[in-house]
């Protein structure tokens, strides 16, 4: 058994495509935690996840999974990893019994008992072909298969996108249960930030191929705030304190990255707590500085 502090360690990950560059992405997913990986469409979330899984070859950088090099020790690492995508990657003509027969030969630690327990828990039929499953059923099946080989790391790419709130909630509960084991970790990419508000311990925010924020969610939420003021007061705010500002007819909402400092500096100003969605919105518009 190898000892490791971080389930995922990414350092200066670079991947260049025509028109898009993943630019020196670095972040860590601490062991035993769930990290939300957020960003708008095309920000580089899937490319980063594909690079982690070695589905795409990185140009530069280092990636360690569970303390193992993601290329040299690829298959050792992948024995302990489960990937969940936004769509079920199993043929529509298969059913749960067949997929159990396939995956138990692929994963050394596959447990049919665990798999069928999850199926029962999710009320998923065993013999029904996947082609006849709803989107929610397909996602539950994918999660059941991901959690049945004693994976220590779960990597999910937009896994909750397109699901109704009831199913999403059910799935998030499963993740929290999975994290009860302190060896288990999750990297979860999503643009549904409310899900991450609920379950994430830490958050990495990526935009245009660059990591803008990475750290513990509570620290990020604690340090960021939305300063609300009139248009006249807005002129007095120092530009270095502003991430970006949303202007409206009545005044301005300004995202500040050091709430404590700003509340001291602009005493009397109202600074509301920011949500992950607010942070994402204001950071995405940071190049414009002012937006409506």
């Amino acid at each position, binding site marked *: 058994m190898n000892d490791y502090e971080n389930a995922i360690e990414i350092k200066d990950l670079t991947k260049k495509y025509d028109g898009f560059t993943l630019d020196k992405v670095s972040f860590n997913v601490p062991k035993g935690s769930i990290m939300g990986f957020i960003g708008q469409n095309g920000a580089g979330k899937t490319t980063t996840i594909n690079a982690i*899984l*070695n*589905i*795409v*070859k990185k140009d530069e950088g280092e990636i360690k999974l569970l303390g193992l090099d993601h290329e040299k020790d690829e*298959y*050792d690492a*992948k*024995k302990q*990893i*489960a*990937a969940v*995508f936004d*769509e*079920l*990657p*199993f*043929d*529509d*003509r*298969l059913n749960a019994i*067949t997929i159990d*027969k*396939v*995956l*138990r*030969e*692929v*994963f050394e630690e596959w447990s049919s008992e665990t798999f069928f327990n999850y199926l029962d828990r999710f009320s998923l039929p065993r013999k029904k072909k996947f082609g006849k499953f709803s989107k929610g059923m397909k996602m539950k099946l994918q999660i059941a298969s991901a959690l049945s080989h004693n994976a220590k790391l779960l990597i999910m790419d937009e896994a909750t996108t397109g699901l109704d709130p009831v199913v999403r909630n059910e799935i998030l509960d499963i993740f929290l249960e999975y994290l009860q084991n302190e060896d288990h970790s999750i990297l979860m990419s999503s643009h549904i930030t409310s899900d991450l508000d609920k379950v994430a311990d830490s958050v990495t925010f990526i935009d245009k191929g660059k990591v803008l924020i990475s750290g513990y969610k509570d620290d990020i939420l604690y340090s960021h705030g939305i300063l609300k003021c009139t248009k006249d007061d807005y002129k007095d705010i120092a530009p270095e304190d502003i991430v970006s500002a949303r202007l409206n007819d009545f005044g301005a909402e300004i995202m500040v990255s050091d709430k404590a400092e700003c509340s001291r500096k602009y005493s009397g100003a109202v600074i509301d707590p920011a949500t992950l969605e607010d942070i994402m919105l204001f950071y995405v518009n940071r190049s414009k500085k002012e937006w409506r």
Partner: protein
Amino acid sequence: MKGLIYREFYLSRKTVVYMFLAYIIFVLMITMIIISTYAGNLAKNNDSAETREYLLSQMYLYAGLIAMAGCTYGHNDLIEKDYKSRWQLYSYTLPVPEKKIILSKLTVRITLLLSGFVLAVIAEFIFSAAGKVPASMEHFKNIFVMMCVYGAMCIADIPYLLIMKTQNKGAAFVMIFFVPLTAAIIYGAYKFEKFCSAEAARLYPDMESDAGMMKVAMPYLTKWRDIFLWAGPFILIGAIMIAYFWGIKELKRRRY
């Protein structure tokens, strides 16, 4: 790898079963017609012996083609479906190296091809038994050549489809080479027929033109068949080797 092999067999099984049924129906029909040439309605015809001779000399080839193409057809479109269902992408997340993925595909394809070969041989036994003649070694040789040539194409199809992703694209691209090749073969066949016809008129003026032509052509056809009989296994093994290494290379390239 066992799991991957199981999956490929499972997803190919329906087409294989349907084609197996087509094979059984075909073999049964031809068997009954052959029997009918001496013990049924066809026996009343004057040319019943000729009909039987014709069926025995040709139908084993069709049965072999149905058997071999039928067995492998179901597996042919699996790569396209794997791309569509995103299994191809998912397989990169499994602790399975590319060589095992290709080996599983080759194992299934070769097993299905060999099953088709066995069915083709069985058809020859059934037809000869129905015709009350011993099974022909020449026919077995022809079936073997057919398996080697068809098998080589069928196996090379694995890396080819990995590149092309869809059967439509693959078929369209292969046409670029297939059309001139077919034209060349047709032209060659036409020239050969003309040559045989002229030779038959010169050497066997008393024989019917078709019979004379066959007499001229047969030594050439047998010679070419014998060349293929020796070259066939090498072609097939070569195709397997190429498919293996090319397939691995393509799977690695797909990690773009």
